[in-house]
């Protein structure tokens, strides 16, 4: 059972455009993480959000955790070709349980 739903599954945009990808669940998570994976590599952690309503910024990337801690979004401003990759959200329900991953959003930014 896939407990974390990501949308859209694929996104192809031009350099300079803004975009938002979503991560939704019916379950409450103690924390949510966003990873980016490039071809031939493992996922790399971008950010962890812990508090409901929390917003974190990482240069042009803005991450938000929903108030109820069931969903999260990733907004990229002025996308660049270097942002191309697979964006994965992951969550843990409680201490002692492994991370569950969504299927990811494949982003392609062309110049």
């Amino acid at each position: 059972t896939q407990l974390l739903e990501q949308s859209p599954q694929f996104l192809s945009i031009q350099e300079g455009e803004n975009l938002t990808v979503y991560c939704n669940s019916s379950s409450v998570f103690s924390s949510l993480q966003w990873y980016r994976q490039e071809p031939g590599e493992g996922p790399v952690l971008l950010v962890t959000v812990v508090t409901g309503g929390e917003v974190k910024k990482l240069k042009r990337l803005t991450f938000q955790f929903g108030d109820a801690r069931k969903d999260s979004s990733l907004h990229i401003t002025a996308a660049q070709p270097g942002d191309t990759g697979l964006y994965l959200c992951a969550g843990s329900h409680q201490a002692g349980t492994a991370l569950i991953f969504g299927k990811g959003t494949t982003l392609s930014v062309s110049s």
Partner: protein
Amino acid sequence: EAGVTQSPTHLIKTRGQQATLRCSPISGHTSVYWYQQALGLGLQFLLWYDEGEERNRGNFPPRFSGRQFPNYSSELNVNALELEDSALYLCASSRQGAVEKLFFGSGTQLSVL
């Protein structure tokens, strides 16, 4: 500082054979996690080892097994390989139980023919 290393990079087996995949965690990390990334299915949790003990197991059949050695390295064994076992197998490590901060290796691409 060396990251998580996995070997081999690629592995080709035939149906029914056994495969062994290896992982060395980041120095100082005692937890090792294994995930399967099959096309279209995302990352599926397989196994979690910490201090040599299995802490958690995903929804996979018993032919997927593993162990963690005293130096915290780990191996994943897959017996009686099936075609659908073809996937990228990713290993991650963290400080003890720090599941919210995983560091991944580049994976082993297993192809079952």
